[in-house]
C-alpha cells in the first residue's frame, strides 16, 4: 500500500550539432516537467491527504486521491524509502488502524494521523468582507522664526488632510490600501493586491518635504587685505527639496512551480527643489560664491529576480539596474584670478557643483541551506558596477559572505561568518579596497534563565594604492599600500534572576592597526607647542586621523517589572576610543532610564530620560604648508589639548488615559537641551565660532471622542520649538492644530447604525 515514489531524472545529452533553440525548448520542457513532477501535485488541494506525525506535527508522506502514497516530506522535501517514525526515529511500516484514520508505530506506539488537505473555512470562497475607514481633517498652523529646523520634515500652513484605509477580502483574494495626504509634499499611499497568493502586487508612494539650510556666509567676508569677498546670489531663499518615491513590486508564483517565485521591483525616486551650491576661487581672487541650484534628480531602480525553495535549500537571484539622472542645470561662476599664475590654471565662466549622472548594475545571488535542525549555511554573492556618465569612470564591487550556524550541543549556538568585498575604481587616483572580515560567535544557555555569549572577529582592509606623499614640490604623488587590521572580541550575558527581571551586559573591545589615516610626513616632523619655524619641506604635518586604534565598549541593560503596574528599564553604555599615535581620546557615556506605570487598566504613564555625554581630546594643527608652497618658511601651531565636548539630555514623557469608553486623552512632551563646545588653547575664541547650544521642545496633546459607533472625533495640538542659543541660527517655533473626523464603515454597520 505504501510505495516509494521515485522520480526519473532525464538524461540530458545534447550534441553540439543540434539546433540550440530546440535544445533550449526541450530542456525547459523537461525542466518544467521535472519540477512539476514533485511540486505540482502538492497543491492539488482537497483530493489529497497528508500523513502527519502527531508528536512533531511534520508530514511524513502524502497520500493522493487515487490511494497511492508519495513518501516525500513536504517540510524537508525529502524522499523517504519507507516511513520512519519521527518520534523514535526507527524505520517502520506503520500499522493502519480502523479506517486508516490513525496509524501507529509498532516500536513506540507513536501515532501518525492523516489529515485532509483542504482550504480552511477562513479562506473559503463564500467569505467576503469589506472594511473602510476615512478620516478627513483640517490643519492650521502658526509659525514664528525660521521653519528650517523646527519643521524640517513637516508641511506648514493651513490645509486639508485625509487619511483612509480599506480592506477587501473575497476568499483568498485581498485588496487593501491605506493613504495619508497632508499636502502635495507630504503624502504616503500604499496598495496591496493578493490574488490567491499566486500574484502579490504592492505599490507604495510617498513624498517627504525636507527643508534645507541656507548658509548666509555671515562669518566670512573679513575685509582686512580686501581679498576675500562673499556673494550670496539668492539671499532670501528658503531652500527645500521634496523627495518622492514610487515603489511597485510584484511576486508571481507560477502554477506547477509552487516553490519558485518570480519577483520584480521598481523604484522611481525623485528629489526636486532647490538647494544652496557654493564654490571658491582660489587664493588671489578669493571669492566665495553661493548660488541656487535647481535639484531635479531622478533615480530609477529595476530589480528582476527569482526565489526558489527546494526543501532545505533556498536560492535567490536578482539583477538590479539603477539609473541616476540630475536634470537640473548646474550653476555657473566666472573664475577670474586677480593675476595670471600657473598655480591657477582653471579660469573662465564655468559650472560648479555638477552632479554627474550615473548607472549601476548589481547581480545578487543568495543561498541558504538548512543542513539539519539548528545547522544552516548561508552564502551570498554580489557583483556590482557603477559608472559615472559624466567622466565615464567606473567602480566595481564584488562581495561575498558565508555564514555557518550550528547547535553542536544542547543550548549552544555557534556562528562562524566570513565576508569579503572588493571595491575597484577605474580612476587611478581612487583608492582600491579589499576587505576580508570573519568571526566566530557562541551563545550558551548555561541554565534555563542564564545565557552567555562570546565572540571574536578579525577584519583586514587592504588599500593597495593610497596616496602616501608627494615627491618634491611638483612631482608625482607616491602611492603604496595602507592596510588596516582590526581584532575584536566580546563577552556578554543574559540573566533572568527572577520572573520580571532581565539583566544583560556586554563588553566589547577592538584593537586596530593602521586605521584610515590622512598621511603626512612623520619622519621630518617634531611636534612642539607654539609657533615654530620649520624648514621648507613638503608636508610638515604628521599622520592624522579621527579613527581609533583601541576601542572599548560596555553595555548594561536591566528590564525590571517592579510591580504589576510599574516597569523600570535603565540602560547604560560606555565607550572609550583611543589612538595613541595621534594622541586622540574619545569617551562617551550614555544613560537611558525608562519607566512605565499603569495604575489602572485605562491609564498609563511613561517617561524616558537620557543623558549623553561625550568628550574628545585631540591634537590639532593650525597652519600647514602641505601642497602649495612658497619660498618662505612654513609654520605650524600645535594645540595638544584641544577638547570637544558634547552633552545632550532628552526627557520624554507621555500619558494615555481613557476616562470613559468614548473618550481617550493623550499628552506627550519631549525636551532636548544639547550643547557642544570646542576649546582650543591657541585660539580660545574658536569655540565661540562653532559652539552649539540647541534646545528643542515638542509637545503633543489631544483627545479622541467617539460620537457614535464608528465615528470618532480627534483633535490635537502640537507645539515645536527649536532654539539655537549660541549661533542664533534657524531658531523658530510652530503651533499646529489638527481636527479629524474618522468614519469606520464596518463598526457603524456592526452596531446597526
Amino acid at each position, binding site marked *: 500500500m505504501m510505495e516509494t515514489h521515485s522520480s526519473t531524472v532525464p538524461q540530458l545529452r545534447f550534441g553540439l550539432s543540434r539546433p540550440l533553440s530546440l535544445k533550449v525548448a526541450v530542456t525547459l520542457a523537461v525542466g518544467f516537467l521535472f519540477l512539476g513532477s514533485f511540486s505540482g501535485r502538492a497543491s492539488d488541494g482537497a483530493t489529497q491527504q497528508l500523513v502527519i506525525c502527531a508528536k512533531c506535527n511534520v508530514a511524513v508522506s502524502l497520500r493522493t486521491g487515487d490511494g497511492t502514497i508519495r513518501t516525500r516530506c*513536504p517540510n524537508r522535501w525529502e524522499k523517504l524509502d519507507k516511513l520512519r517514525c519521527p518520534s523514535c526515529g526507527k524505520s517502520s511500516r506503520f500499522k493502519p488502524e480502523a479506517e486508516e484514520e490513525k496509524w501507529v508505530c509498532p516500536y513506540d506506539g507513536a501515532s501518525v494521523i492523516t489529515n485532509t488537505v483542504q482550504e480552511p*473555512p477562513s479562506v473559503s470562497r463564500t467569505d467576503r468582507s469589506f472594511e473602510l475607514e476615512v478620516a478627513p481633517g483640517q490643519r492650521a498652523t502658526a509659525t514664528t522664526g525660521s521653519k528650517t529646523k523646527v519643521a524640517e520634515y513637516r508641511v506648514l500652513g493651513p490645509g486639508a488632510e485625509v487619511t483612509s484605509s480599506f480592506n477587501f477580502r473575497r476568499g483568498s483574494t485581498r485588496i487593501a490600501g491605506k493613504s495619508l495626504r497632508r499636502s502635495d509634499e507630504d503624502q504616503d499611499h500604499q496598495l496591496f493586491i493578493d490574488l490567491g497568493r499566486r500574484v502579490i502586487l504592492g505599490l507604495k508612494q510617498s513624498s517627504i518635504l525636507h527643508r534645507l539650510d541656507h548658509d548666509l556666509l555671515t562669518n566670512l567676508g573679513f575685509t582686512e587685505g580686501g581679498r576675500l569677498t562673499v556673494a550670496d546670489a539668492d539671499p532670501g531663499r528658503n531652500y527645500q527639496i521634496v523627495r518622492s518615491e514610487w515603489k511597485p513590486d510584484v511576486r508571481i508564483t507560477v502554477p506547477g512551480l509552487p516553490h519558485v517565485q518570480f519577483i520584480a521591483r521598481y523604484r522611481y525616486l525623485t528629489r526636486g527643489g532647490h538647494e544652496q551650491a557654493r564654490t571658491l576661487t582660489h587664493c588671489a581672487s578669493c571669492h566665495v560664491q553661493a548660488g541656487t541650484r535647481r535639484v531635479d534628480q531622478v533615480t530609477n531602480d529595476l530589480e528582476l529576480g527569482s526565489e526558489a525553495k527546494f526543501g532545505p535549500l533556498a536560492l535567490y537571484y536578482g539583477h538590479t539596474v539603477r539609473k541616476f539622472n540630475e536634470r537640473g542645470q548646474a550653476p555657473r561662476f566666472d573664475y577670474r*584670478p586677480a593675476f595670471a599664475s600657473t598655480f591657477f590654471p582653471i579660469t573662465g565662466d564655468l559650472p560648479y557643483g555638477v552632479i554627474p549622472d550615473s548607472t549601476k548594475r548589481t547581480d545578487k545571488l543568495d543561498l541558504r541551506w538548512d543542513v539539519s535542525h539548528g545547522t544552516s549555511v*548561508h552564502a551570498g554573492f554580489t557583483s556590482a558596477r557603477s559608472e559615472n556618465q559624466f567622466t565615464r569612470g*567606473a567602480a566595481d564591487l564584488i562581495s561575498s559572505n558565508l*555564514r555557518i550556524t550550528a547547535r553542536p550541543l544542547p543550548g549552544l549556538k555557534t556562528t562562524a561568518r566570513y565576508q569579503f568585498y572588493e571595491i575597484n575604481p577605474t580612476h587611478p587616483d581612487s583608492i582600491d579596497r579589499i576587505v576580508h572580515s570573519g568571526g566566530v560567535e557562541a551563545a550558551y544557555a548555561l541554565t534555563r534563565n542564564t545565557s552567555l555569549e562570546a565572540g571574536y572577529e578579525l577584519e583586514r582592509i587592504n588599500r593597495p594604492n593610497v596616496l602616501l606623499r608627494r615627491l618634491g614640490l611638483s612631482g608625482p604623488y607616491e602611492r603604496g599600500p595602507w592596510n588596516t587590521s582590526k581584532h575584536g572580541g566580546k563577552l556578554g550575558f543574559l540573566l533572568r534572576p527572577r520572573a520580571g527581571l532581565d539583566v544583560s551586559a556586554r563588553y566589547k573591545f577592538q584593537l586596530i592597526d593602521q586605521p584610515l589615516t590622512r598621511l603626512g610626513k612623520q619622519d621630518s616632523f617634531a611636534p612642539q607647542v607654539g609657533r615654530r619655524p620649520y624648514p621648507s619641506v613638503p608636508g610638515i604635518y604628521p599622520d592624522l586621523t579621527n579613527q581609533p586604534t583601541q576601542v572599548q565598549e560596555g553595555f548594561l541593560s536591566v528590564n525590571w517589572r517592579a510591580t504589576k503596574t510599574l516597569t523600570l528599564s535603565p540602560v547604560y553604555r560606555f565607550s572609550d576610543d583611543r589612538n595613541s599615535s595621534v594622541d586622540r581620546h574619545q569617551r562617551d557615556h550614555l544613560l537611558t532610564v525608562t519607566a512605565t506605570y499603569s495604575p489602572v487598566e485605562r491609564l498609563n504613564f511613561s517617561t524616558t530620560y537620557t543623558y549623553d555625554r561625550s568628550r574628545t581630546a585631540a591634537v590639532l594643527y593650525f597652519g600647514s604648508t602641505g601642497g602649495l608652497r612658497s619660498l618662505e618658511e612654513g609654520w605650524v601651531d600645535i594645540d595638544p589639548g584641544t577638547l570637544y565636548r558634547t552633552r545632550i539630555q532628552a526627557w520624554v514623557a507621555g500619558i494615555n488615559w481613557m476616562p470613559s469608553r468614548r473618550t481617550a486623552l493623550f499628552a506627550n512632551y519631549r525636551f532636548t537641551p544639547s550643547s557642544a563646545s570646542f576649546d582650543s588653547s591657541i585660539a580660545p575664541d574658536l569655540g565661540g*565660532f562653532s559652539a552649539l547650544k540647541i534646545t528643542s521642545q515638542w509637545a503633543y496633546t489631544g483627545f479622541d471622542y467617539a460620537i457614535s459607533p464608528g465615528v470618532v472625533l480627534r483633535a490635537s495640538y502640537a507645539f515645536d520649538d527649536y532654539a539655537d542659543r549660541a549661533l542664533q541660527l534657524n531658531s523658530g517655533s510652530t503651533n499646529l492644530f489638527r481636527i479629524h473626523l474618522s468614519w469606520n464603515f464596518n463598526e457603524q454597520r456592526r452596531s446597526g447604525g
Partner: protein
Amino acid sequence: MKPSKRKFKLASLSTIVVLALCSVMTDAGEKQQDRAPTAKVPSIAGAEYVGQKMCAVCHVDQGREFSKTAHARIATFELQVARRECESCHGPGSLHIQGRGDTRKILKFGMALDPELFGRGDPSKIIHYSGLPPAEKANTNAYCLSCHNSRSHFDWAGSRHDQANVGCVDCHYPMRATEKLLIKPEPDLCLDCHAQRRAQLSYPSHHPILEGKIKCTDCHNQHGSGSRAMLRQENVSQLCFQCHPEKEGPFTFEHPPVTEDCTICHEPHGTIANNLKKQEEPFLCMQCHPGHQSQLPALKDVLDSREKRQTFYTKCTQCHSTLHGTDLPSTTGLGRFTR
C-alpha cells in the same frame, strides 16, 4: 560564433545548470532522510488534534481577527508543514477542550502582549511563547522559520537578534491583522528595546524616523544580514548610496571616508551638529586635516585676527562644498572640493 548563437548557448547552459542543481537537490534530499525536522512545535503530552471548527466554538473573536491575517490566506502550495489551522501553532487541543478551556493545556502566543484580546488569565499558569525563558525561544523561532525561509530571513540564524535570544513573537503577533503582524508599528517596536536610539532620533539633527517618514527597517534587516549592524547592503557606504545616489559617483576626486565608511564623519541616528555630523566643524575636519595657512603675505598670520580665524576655522564646507566627491578640479587644477 554569432552573438545570437552565443546567447542561445548561454541560455541553454544556464538551464542545464539549474536542472542539474535541482537534480542534485533531489538526490541530496534522499540522503537527508535521517535528519530531524527543522522545527518542532512544543508538545502537549497526551493531547490530540481536534480541528479548527472546535476551536471556533469558543474563540469567536480570535477566529474573526485571525481570518483577516495573511496566515489565514496561505494557500496549500505555500505550506511547508501540515495544515492544522489553529493547532499548527497552538498544538493539539483535545486536552484543552476536555479541561473546559484549561489554558495550561494549550500553547499560546503573546498572552502577555494583548490581554484585551485574550482575556486576563494568569500568565504564570499559561504556556505562551512570549513568556518562554530566553534560551528556549529558539525552538519557537525555528517553528516560524520552517515556513518563513524567504530571502529576507536567510540570515536569521546567527544574527544579532538570534544571538540575543529575541523571539519572533517578541515583535510579531500571528493573530492580529496588523502590518506584517507586528505587535506595534515601527519605530516604537524597535525603540522599545533600543531606547538609546530613541533618544538619538530626537537630537537636533536626525533622520525623520520619529516623524514616520522612514523606518528603521529601511536600513537594517531585522532578520539578519551578512554585513555588520544587520545592514541591508554590503557596507555602510553602499547602504547610504541607496537614498543618496548623488554621492556615489564614482568621482574623479574622491574623499576617502566617503567610499570607505560614511560613519567616519556621520552618526546616522542623530547628532547635535547639523547634517548628522559626529562633531561640528572645524573640529571634525581638523582631526584629519591641518588648518589653513597661506604663504601669501596678506594671509600668512592667519591666526592673528579674529576675522581670519572666523573665516578659516568656522565651517570648512563653506569653501570645500563638494567634499563628498566631484569631477571638477579646483582653480589650482587639484581636487580641493571647491567646485
